[in-house]
């Protein structure tokens, strides 16, 4: 078992792309070509070569391949590993460079660049799309931490654009208006890793089968109401516990019920958890909300509208970061919860008409 690397082949100038080999699938998926957008990588390689020509050792390296074995980028281990490094951290929605700086100052492990926070998408309506590339580039330039950005469900060209922009993680997100009512993006085709939302285990495993390297609960974004995130987290946890208790011969029928590949189902049953990082998202508005989700088993927290729709974003951002680290320490939680000013007003999820529920988007 374990990981099988998915080579997308950027082992160096002039090298041949290696065949991709998805995890959790028995064979090559056949036919998909090399990674679509190599320009950024070439650019980086050029920058790297320049940087390497002047290290203090005085040993100029004219090629990044000198003296070491082939490098493999875009592998499943590298994609999933990136998410492992975000654990215990908070990823914050930002709509401009200034918000991104506030988030970084507060101790965010990454920022999520988007055009409008979910609360505004709800309020203003209309079609929600990938952000303006200029805005993403400004955010990338403004902060030193990883930058994520959202693509519409099924909109693989938006994802190609985000990869070419040098974004570190793509969120195939139900918060944006879905572009394809049947198919999600084939995420194996990309070097950039993807995070996807899930309301239950079957949905999470379908996203993994498509190549997602990180899962988050869907919550109900833009409401400031945490109940859906709680339900998703409890559901996923309970379904995993149930799988782990099943005898091996019953996993086949379980896979059928979950509408998920049997080898992924078997892997989850054996591990007792998802084979990737599981964050929480949707409706987190206070330090206590973040700690609640961590105690329910989340590996980390996405905060959307909860920070920049509140009275004092910088303080609230710091408080949520500290609460996420010390989620088990009520004394710290008391301290960080004081004096934060107004939380976002929020919307009760039960009052939302079905068409306004983002968590139902995705299949």
């Amino acid at each position, binding site marked *: 078992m*374990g990981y099988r690397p998915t080579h997308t082949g950027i082992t160096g100038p002039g090298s041949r792309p290696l065949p991709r080999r998805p995890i959790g699938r028995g064979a090559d998926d056949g036919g998909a070509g090399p990674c679509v957008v190599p320009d950024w990588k070439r650019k980086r390689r050029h920058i790297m070569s320049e940087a390497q020509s002047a290290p203090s*050792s005085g040993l100029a*390296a004219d090629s990044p391949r000198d003296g*070491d074995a*082939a490098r493999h980028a875009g592998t499943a281990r*590298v994609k999933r590993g990136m998410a492992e490094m975000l*654990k*215990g951290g908070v990823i914050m929605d930002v709509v401009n460079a200034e918000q991104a700086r506030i988030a970084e100052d507060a101790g965010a492990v990454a920022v999520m660049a988007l055009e409008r926070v979910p609360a505004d998408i709800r309020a203003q309506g209309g079609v929600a799309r990938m952000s303006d590339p200029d805005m993403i580039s400004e955010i990338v330039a403004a902060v030193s931490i990883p930058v994520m950005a959202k693509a519409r469900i099924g909109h693989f060209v938006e994802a190609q654009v985000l990869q070419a922009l*040098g974004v570190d993680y793509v969120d195939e997100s139900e918060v944006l208006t879905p572009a394809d009512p049947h198919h999600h993006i084939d995420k194996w085709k990309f070097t950039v890793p993807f995070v996807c939302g899930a309301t239950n285990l079957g949905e999470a495993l379908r996203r993994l089968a498509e190549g997602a390297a990180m899962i988050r609960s869907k919550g109900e974004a833009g409401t400031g109401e945490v109940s859906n995130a709680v339900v998703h987290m409890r559901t996923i946890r309970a379904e995993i516990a149930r799988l782990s208790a099943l005898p091996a011969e019953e996993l086949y029928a379980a896979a059928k019920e979950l509408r998920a590949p049997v080898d992924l189902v078997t892997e989850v049953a054996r591990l007792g958890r998802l084979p990737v990082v599981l964050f929480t998202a949707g409706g987190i508005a206070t330090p206590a909300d973040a700690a609640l989700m961590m105690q329910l088993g989340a590996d980390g927290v996405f905060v959307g509208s909860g920070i920049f729709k509140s009275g004092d974003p910088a303080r609230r951002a710091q408080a949520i970061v500290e609460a996420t680290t010390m989620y088990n320490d009520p004394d710290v939680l008391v301290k960080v919860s004081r004096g934060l000013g107004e939380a976002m007003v929020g919307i009760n999820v039960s009052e939302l008409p079905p068409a306004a529920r983002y968590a139902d988007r995705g299949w």
Partner: protein
Amino acid sequence: MSGPRIGVLALQGDVREHARALAAAGARPVEVRRVAELDEVDGLVLPGGESTTIGRLLRVFALLEPLRERVLAGLPVFGSCAGMILLARDVVDGRPDQPLVGGLDMVVRRNAFGRQVDSFEADLDVVGVPGPPVHAVFIRAPWVEKAGDTVEVLARVAEAPVAVRQGSLLATAFHPELTGDFRVHRLFVDIVRSSGSGR
């Protein structure tokens, strides 16, 4: 049979993977979030994660000075990726106010290999790790830009040092905790054992 008690700084990052690797390498791992927990350990791992976040939390939770004192007093420490940055004397391409623990006489370049799309895996020979090459996972990884005379370079990628040791301080730009090959952790457990503070 009880191995040395080795802490994993658990403010943010891939704490679980390091704890698992330490256990497999014969140590007793414990999570460290408070000074009292830091006082109890014979060695410490600074995990992979976001170095600016971990540094800020070290300051917020008043762990930075106690940790610096223990490092000065000879506490064995192993840092991977963000942990390597935290052990450096200085950082290039970091944030100007980024808190560092220090201890290792080196300057590192943060995100030296590029962004996530440039993250990669490669096989490396690492000095002090016997057997076949170590399969190394680099994720938005740093490299060592400048190292003092007392710093031994254990491995390089394209001439840039990516694994170093100075006495009982060990640092890698890659993530040995992610591969299931625990030889680097075994090397660190041996360093802790031979540093003699075994309780």
